[in-house]
């Protein structure tokens, strides 16, 4: 819906308009060179340096300044039959650092974003437990809490790119992802509150989790993961979850495909076998070239993307210093290294991680170069702490064919042209 109304911000036409207004590619946008003429933004007193700004009562809860109104979620109408069971995309091309602002963090619903107030919220734990329990929201807030930063990546992120270069922008090719700091209660604590003695040997047990919405989004999770690092979260980035992200309570399943991060969590059932629900049979199974399909492909493998320059974030400043930046992440642990190439993979340079990689969370990387104005084929290649190296699309296709739909963690290529515009391409 947002895409109908908003341009991409840096679409081809907007880009060209911007370049013309700035007097061509050499004198890029934002230049303030004194070519003899003094800059009136400096020599003349500006309104904001003389009059008032807004009072502190103007905005009890603020939105970004209007000049940033292109940094928004976008959807792609033709991807799904309707906008209720659908997806939109985080504007990763315009963000920096690693924390995703909740207001533009992507959404994926199967029966829409429901409104469920805390007073109406109930969480049931049943099945192979000593005592089946019902918690209210207020109950959950009384358990000991933890804080963790994790990425949530849709299993289908980059899924439209399996057969070729389709969508022109990092937001669309890699934006089914967000990264937040969650506060909540370990699922282990709640399961132990209900008692797991009745379950016997936990090694072969499963939990089944479902949401309060009509789709329910039920998924089976092996008990060892449930007892390891799964969180029942009620705060993200310091505040309550957004409605569209599961308010008031969602499951956080670190490193695993976003579909399992059940929103509006209403029930956890301890079982001795997986349910094999719709979301783990019909969907979120990965068909291979021979027609068989992988199931239970839970981990999201190491992946990265250059967010700028990229098709929605072209170079507008001409040759000279250029910051190449992007994101890297792995569901199997921390990112240890990212390599960047400007020539389509002939030669690689190790990029700089903004800080040490955190397990199952986004990492920000930078490579500062002196751009000579010639065209580039930009790629990034992530390494994680297990020794996994992000593969090319050709390497993935060799194992899986082109119909896996999910789990496309291939190396992305942006063709940056002499004009500074960039395009999503595949290379040999």
């Amino acid at each position, binding site marked *: 819906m947002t895409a109908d109304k908003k341009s991409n911000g840096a679409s081809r036409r907007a880009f060209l308009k911007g370049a013309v207004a700035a007097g061509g590619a050499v004198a890029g946008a934002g230049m303030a060179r004194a070519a003899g003429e003094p800059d009136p933004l400096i020599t003349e007193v500006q309104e904001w340096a003389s009059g008032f700004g807004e009072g502190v009562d103007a905005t009890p809860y603020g939105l970004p300044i209007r000049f940033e109104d292109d940094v928004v979620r976008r959807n792609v109408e033709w991807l799904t039959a309707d906008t209720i069971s659908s997806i939109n995309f985080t504007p990763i091309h315009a963000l920096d650092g690693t924390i995703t602002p909740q207001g533009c963090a992507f959404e994926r619903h199967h029966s829409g974003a429901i409104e469920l107030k805390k007073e109406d919220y109930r969480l049931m734990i049943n*099945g192979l437990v000593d005592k089946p329990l019902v918690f209210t929201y207020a109950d959950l807030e009384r358990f000991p809490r933890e804080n963790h930063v994790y990425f949530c990546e849709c299993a289908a992120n980059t899924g439209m790119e399996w057969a070729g270069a389709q969508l022109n922008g990092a937001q669309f090719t890699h934006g089914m992802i967000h990264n937040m700091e969650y506060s909540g209660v370990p699922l282990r604590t709640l399961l132990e509150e209900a008692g797991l003695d009745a379950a016997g040997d936990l090694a072969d047990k499963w939990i089944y989790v479902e949401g309060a919405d009509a789709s329910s989004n039920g998924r089976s999770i092996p008990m060892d993961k449930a007892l390891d690092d799964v969180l029942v979260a009620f705060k993200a980035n310091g505040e309550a979850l957004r409605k569209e992200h599961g308010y008031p309570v969602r499951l956080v399943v670190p490193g695993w495909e976003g579909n399992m991060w059940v929103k509006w969590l209403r029930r956890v059932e301890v079982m001795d076998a997986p349910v094999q629900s719709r979301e783990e049979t019909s969907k979120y199974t990965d068909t291979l070239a021979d027609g068989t399909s992988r199931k239970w492909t839970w981990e999201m493998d190491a992946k990265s993307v250059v967010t700028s320059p990229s098709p929605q974030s072209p170079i507008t400043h001409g040759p000279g210093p250029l910051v190449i930046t992007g994101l890297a992440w792995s569901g199997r642990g921390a990112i240890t290294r990212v390599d960047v190439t400007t020539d389509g993979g002939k030669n690689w340079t190790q990029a700089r991680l903004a800080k040490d990689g955190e397990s199952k969370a986004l990492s920000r990387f930078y490579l500062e170069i002196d751009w000579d104005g010639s065209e580039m084929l930009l790629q990034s290649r992530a390494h994680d702490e297990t*020794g996994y190296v992000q593969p090319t699309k050709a390497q993935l296709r060799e194992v899986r064919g082109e119909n896996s739909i999910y789990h496309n963690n291939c190396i992305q290529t942006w063709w940056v042209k002499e004009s500074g515009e960039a395009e999503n391409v595949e290379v040999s």
Partner: protein
Amino acid sequence: EPHGNYNLGRMALPEEIAAWNLDVSPDGTGLPEGSGDVLTGEEVFIEKCAVCHGDFAEGRGNWPKLAGGDGTLADKDPLKTVGSYWPYLSTAWDYVHRSMPFGAAQTLSVDETYAIVAYILYSNYLVEDDFVLSNENFLEVEMPNADGFIVDDREEAEAHFWRDDVCMSDCKDSVEITMRAAVLDVTPEEEEEAGAEPAEAETEMAAAETGEV
């Protein structure tokens, strides 16, 4: 009655568990008593499902196809339906009962659900038109793709992605652009360009899959 380490929450009542614990497992666990036949299923399907899924479960527009696609899973464009893809009938019963019709979920009775599932089986040529599906014979139905799934084998099949020998310089002689997204041009961009019909976009996608620069 005290419980757990914190004594928080309260015991769930049997009625509450019964109201929410609706999942059905492949071995039939969770299936309620009931039955429904193909012809009843056809009536209910036409009334409540066909507007999106078609009179014969073949799908309308961009809505999911529930029937067809037999033998297409290894094709360039596989058609994955209940008949061609789904491994367990329990999933169809469970999902229809809990989450369909889209926009009016949890309005189907147990017997209606059996009937609809019987009709979907019939639409996939898996049963005759006088078939009656019930909790008694549920496990007798054979799903064609029941053996079509393997557990995630990435750590074996993709073991070569774990490596310490990455190339850093002079890795290839040449690099050619083999495909361009701009040629496809299906990215939402400007107001007048948005809102392409799904069918139209699908055609463009199909075209782009073979198109090279």
